[in-house]
C-alpha cells in the first residue's frame, strides 16, 4: 500500500517537472527530451518482454517500425486523417501483427525464439526495402504532423513545444500504464511464469495464452512509440525497422538494467544523450556503444539500475531491512 502511494507521488512529480521543462531548456535540448520520452516507452515495452517475461527478442524493431510506417502511410494516403485515428490505425496494425507473429513464434523458446524474431525482423526490413511504392524504400517518407482536435478546439502541432506536451502526456501515460500492467494479475502471471512455468501450468494458468497476450501488448506499445517517432521526426526511413533499431533498444534496456521497471527509462536517457555527445566527437560512436554493451554484459549484467540499487542499499540498507527484506528485492520481483 505504502509503496504504491510513494510511486504515485514520484510519478506526479516527474510529470510536473516535465511540464516545466520547455521553460528552462533550449530548443535542441527539448528536442532531445522528446526523443528520450519516446524511446523510454520503446525500451519499457522491450523490458516487459526481456526483464519480466524472460523472452529475449531480437525483433522488437519490427513492431516499432511497423507503427512508424503505418503512421506515415496512413497520413499520406488518407487525407484529413485526425491524430487520434492515425494512432488508432497504427495500434490496430501492430496488434494484428503481434498476434499473428506471436502465435507463430511463441511455440519456440530461448535461443530458437531469439533467432526467429531476428529472422522475422529481417523479413519486415526486406519488405520495407523492396516495396518501394508504399514505403518509399531507401528514400523514406516525409509527412506533416496532424493537428490535435479536442472537439471544442484545435491545437496546431507544427511547433515543438505543443508536440512535446502531447508526447509527455500520451507517451508518459502509456509508460505509466505499462507500470500499472506489471501490478495487475496479468503482469504477475507473466512474472511467475518466468520463475516457474510448470507450477503455473499446474495451477491452471494457460501460459501460452498469457505469453501471447503479453507479446501482443508489448508489440502494440512499441508500435505506439514508433508512431510518435514518426510524428517527432516527421519522417520515417527503413532504419526505423532495421535490426539496428532492435540493437538500440537492447542497448538502452541493458545499460539501464532489466531488473527494475525504471531501468530502461534511465537507459534511454543515457543512450540518447551519449549518442548525441559521441556522434559530435566521433563518427565511430556505434563502436563505442557496442563496447559499452559487451562490457555491461560481462561485468554489470544488472545494468545501471543495479548499481544504483546497490549504492542505495549500502547507504540506507539498514533502514529497509527492519520490517521486510528490502525494497530492492521487492521491486525486482513485483
Amino acid at each position, binding site marked *: 500500500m505504502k509503496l504504491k502511494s510513494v510511486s504515485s507521488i514520484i510519478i506526479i512529480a516527474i510529470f510536473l517537472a516535465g511540464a516545466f521543462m520547455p521553460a528552462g531548456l533550449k530548443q535542441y535540448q527539448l528536442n532531445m527530451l522528446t526523443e528520450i520520452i519516446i524511446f523510454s516507452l520503446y525500451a519499457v515495452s522491450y523490458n516487459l518482454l*526481456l526483464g519480466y517475461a*524472460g523472452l*529475449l527478442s*531480437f525483433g522488437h524493431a519490427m513492431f516499432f517500425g511497423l507503427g512508424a510506417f503505418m503512421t506515415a502511410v496512413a497520413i499520406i494516403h488518407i487525407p484529413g486523417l485526425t491524430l487520434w485515428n492515425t494512432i488508432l490505425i497504427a495500434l490496430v496494425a501492430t496488434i494484428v501483427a503481434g498476434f499473428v507473429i506471436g502465435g*507463430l*513464434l511463441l*511455440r*519456440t*523458446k*530461448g*535461443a*530458437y525464439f*531469439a*533467432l*526467429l524474431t*531476428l*529472422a*522475422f525482423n*529481417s*523479413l519486415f526490413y*526486406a*519488405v520495407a526495402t*523492396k516495396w518501394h511504392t508504399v514505403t518509399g524504400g531507401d528514400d523514406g517518407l516525409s509527412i506533416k504532423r496532424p493537428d490535435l482536435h479536442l472537439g471544442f478546439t484545435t491545437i496546431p502541432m507544427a511547433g515543438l513545444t505543443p508536440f512535446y506536451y502531447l508526447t509527455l502526456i500520451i507517451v508518459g501515460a502509456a509508460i505509466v500504464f505499462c507500470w500499472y500492467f506489471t501490478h495487475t494479475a496479468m503482469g504477475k502471471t507473466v512474472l511467475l511464469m518466468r520463475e516457474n512455468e510448470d507450477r503455473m501450468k499446474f495451477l491452471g494458468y494457460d501460459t501460452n495464452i498469457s505469453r501471447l497476450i503479453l507479446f501482443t501488448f508489448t508489440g502494440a506499445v512499441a508500435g505506439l512509440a514508433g508512431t510518435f517517432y514518426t510524428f517527432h521526426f516527421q519522417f520515417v526511413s527503413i532504419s526505423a525497422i532495421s*535490426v539496428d533499431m532492435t*540493437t538500440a533498444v*537492447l542497448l538502452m534496456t*541493458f545499460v539501464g538494467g532489466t531488473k527494475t521497471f525504471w531501468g530502461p527509462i534511465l537507459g534511454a536517457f543515457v543512450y540518447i544523450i551519449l549518442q548525441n555527445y559521441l556522434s559530435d566527437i566521433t563518427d*565511430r560512436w*556505434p*563502436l563505442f*556503444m*557496442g*563496447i559499452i*554493451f*559487451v562490457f555491461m*554484459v*560481462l561485468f554489470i*549484467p544488472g545494468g545501471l539500475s543495479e548499481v544504483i540499487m546497490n549504492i542505495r542499499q549500502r547507504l540506507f540498507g539498514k533502514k529497509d531491512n527492519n520490517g521486510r527484506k528490502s525494497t530492492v528485492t521487492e521491486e525486482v520481483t513485483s
Partner: protein
Amino acid sequence: MSEFPVFFLHGLAYAGLLFLVSAGLTLVFGMMNVLNFAHAAMYMLGAYFSYSILMHFTGQLWLPLMVCPLILFIIGAFIERFLLRRVHVYGHVQELLLTFGLAYIITELVKLYWGNYPLAVNIGGFLGSTVSIFGITYPVYRLFIFLCAIFVGTVMALILYKTRLGIILRAAVNDSEMANTLGVNVPLVFMGVFAFGAALSGFAGVIAGPLLSTFPGMAQEILIDAFVVIVVGGFGSLGGAVVASLIIGELQSFGVLLFPKLSIALVYLLMAVVLILKPSGLFGEEQ
C-alpha cells in the same frame, strides 16, 4: 528451358556456401547449446582477411584458405575462453546477448578498418576460369565451392562418428560431469568446439569472397539464410543442415528465375511452413 541446368548449378554452389556457414553454427549449437550470433560476423572477418592476404601477398586462393581458418580459430578460442565462459554462469540469455554484442563490434571494426563499401575479390588461374560440362559453359569456382562443402561435410561426419575424438566430443555433450570424472578436459573440449566453429566460419568467408562481394552487410545477409537452414534442418543436426542447405540454395536460385518479385519472401515462407508443421525442423529432435 535451357536456363534450368545453369540455375540448378547456381543453386548447388549457394547451397555449398550455406552449408559451410551453417555447419559451424549448428555444430556449436548442437555441442555447446550456444547460438552464436557472431558466427556470421566471423565469416565476414574471414572474407576480409582473405581480401587483405590476396592483395598484399599472393593472388592465389590457397594461402587464405589455409591461413584464415587458423586466425579465426585463435579468435574463436579467445572469445570462448575469456568472454563466453565468463557469462556462462548467468545463463543462455546472457550468452546470446554477448555474441550479439560481439557481432555488432566486429561489424563496426570492419567498417573502421576496411571501409563501408564493397570490395571485389578477383581470382585468376584455373579457379577463375570456366569449364564446359554437358554442353554448358560454367565457372569452375562455383563447382569448387560445392566440392569444398562435400569435403568439409564428409570430414566433419567422419570425425564426429568414426574417431576417438568424436566419441570424446559426444560424451562431453551428453553428460559433461561424467566425462569430466573420466578424465576428459571438458572446458578444453568446449573451447576446441567453439574455435573449430569459428575456423569453419573463416573458411566459409574465404570461399564467399570471390562469389559474393565483400562488404560490411554480408554478415547480416548470410546470417538470416543460415538461420533458416538450421531452423528448417533442425537445430544441431548436421544431416539436417545438408538437406536444408540444398533446399534453400535451390529455392533461392530458382526463386530468382521463376518469381523475381517474390524471391526474398520464399525463404521466409518455407521457414514459416516448417515452423507450423514441425517446429523442431525436418531432422531435429522434439524439444
